[in-house]
């Protein structure tokens, strides 16, 4: 278990990270969610020991040097171009105390895991972004750390690379404690026990996905028209507060009002066709905007 208390970082008089307190339970994964500039990287850097907190503490059950227990993947990992993937992973393993006789085997094993078996003897200078990200994961897990810290592990990847990395992380999740940052909510949705919403350095909301949903979720109607014009036309005529996105019109449901019947009675008189009407919940993306948006 890792306990973070009153973590604060001031850069040039500005509180970039402002009094964060949270707990990472062993075996769980936590997402640190916030828009660009919210302080995610700064927070993670303090956890890795790269940055000294201005204030506050990070404690891991009777561990003196927290660097021994963590694996870190920066947002844009940089490797020595003159080392091969295997040499680099082996070296980083040894630096983390993997015994010399096991280091190479262990490095090969994690490179296998991330799918770099065939590229392990290539210099890292030849690697693509996706390969670097996978090598980044390999070096972060080579020493079997207690806590895996990942800074926006999939943000820079294309959809295929993103899927691959998410699958790797899901596997890792089964037997490690993970803390990762993201500004893309879909990632969080798939693999997270605890969400921490960060806004301008402050923790504005925290809890499980379910907690957050219950707290912020609201229902609304989503009506699909054949064109944006028709959706807009409906919005101007409608007596209900309506927002338009492409060919969709949205109507908030407050305290059960309007009912589906009431909505139907308005729709039925429209002179143009309606493709679909449904009652929907907010996407995580929308909750995110609600929590950390303006």
């Amino acid at each position, binding site marked *: 278990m890792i306990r973070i208390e009153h973590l604060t970082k001031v850069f040039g008089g500005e509180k970039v990270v402002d009094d964060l307190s949270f707990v990472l339970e062993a075996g769980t994964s936590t997402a640190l969610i916030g828009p660009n500039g919210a302080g995610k*990287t700064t927070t993670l*850097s303090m956890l*890795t*020991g*790269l*940055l*000294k907190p201005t204030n506050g503490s990070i404690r891991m059950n009777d561990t003196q*040097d927290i*660097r*021994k227990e*963590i694996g*870190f993947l*920066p*947002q*844009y*990992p*940089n*490797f*020595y171009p*003159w*080392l091969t993937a295997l*040499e680099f992973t082996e*070296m*980083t393993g*040894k*630096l*983390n*105390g993997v015994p010399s006789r096991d280091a190479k085997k262990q490095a090969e094993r994690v490179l296998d895991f991330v799918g770099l078996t065939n590229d392990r003897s290539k210099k890292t200078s030849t690697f693509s972004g996706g390969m670097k990200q996978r090598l980044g994961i390999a*070096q972060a897990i080579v020493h079997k750390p207690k806590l895996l810290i990942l*800074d926006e592990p999939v943000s820079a990847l294309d959809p295929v690379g993103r899927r691959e990395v998410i699958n790797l992380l899901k596997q890792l999740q089964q037997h490690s404690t993970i803390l990762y940052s993201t500004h893309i909510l879909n990632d969080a949705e798939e693999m997270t026990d605890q969400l921490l919403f960060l806004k301008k350095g402050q923790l504005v909301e925290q809890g499980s996905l379910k907690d957050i949903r219950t707290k912020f979720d609201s229902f609304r109607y989503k009506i699909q028209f054949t064109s944006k014009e028709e959706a807009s036309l409906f919005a101007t005529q409608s007596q209900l507060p309506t927002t338009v996105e492409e060919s969709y019109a949205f109507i908030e449901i407050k305290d059960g009002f309007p009912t589906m019947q009431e909505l139907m009675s308005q729709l039925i008189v429209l002179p143009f066709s309606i493709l679909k009407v449904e009652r929907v919940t907010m996407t995580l993306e929308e909750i995110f905007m609600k929590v950390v948006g303006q």
Partner: protein
Amino acid sequence: MKTFIILLQKEFRESWRSFKFLWMPLLFILLGITDPLTNYYMEDILNAVGNMPDGFSLSLPDFVPIDILMASTGQFQSIGLIVFVITIAGMINRERQNGTATLIYVRPISFFALFMSKWVVGSLLGILSVSLGYAGSMYYTAILYGSVDTMSFIQMVMSYCVWIVFATAVALMFSAIFKTAFATTFTIIVIPFGVMIDSLIGQYWHFSPWKLANYSVQLLSDTHNEYYIKTLLLTIILLILAIIIGILFTRKNAGTTKI
């Protein structure tokens, strides 16, 4: 100790794969053999080039071996030293600036081990280059001008190596304190320019690290230099100081690595 060995291995690998252990010694060998050869063949060169006005006769001074070794030392102290210290002054800060340091700094390493691994490899690169450079100079000097006492020669080279090891420590210290542009500037001011300044106005003091190179060559002559030992000791003390400051700043500036 274990992390020191691993980091040392890494530094050697880097220097080896970037061919530093090839081109740096080659540079010093070239600088070393230039003076004995050009001085000896100067008359022939001038004649071959021709175009000498009639009646023009050039009287070249008669050099003795120590003059030639002094001249080679002058080459090392200018071009050689500039190239060498610039290489060293980028060893720590460049890794921070390109972010490669990040994946090292998040591991349980000591900054003592980190700094020392770079200092050891830098120093060995310098010692190898300088030794081969002097060997090249001595080889042609011995053929063309005559020999010197072997023990004194070895003493001179070792003594000059203390200076190179000092220069390595100072350049690394600046590398730990500043970003590359500033570190390079300060290093060039303190080391090669320092040598120049000391040779211009150095008559006002008798011992300083910047005099060590000249004093080293004087070990070949019979005259006893009462300031030599003090200069040597001062250099070693400042060297240790540079290492201590360098280690402290390596740790202090660890957070400036690109994340």
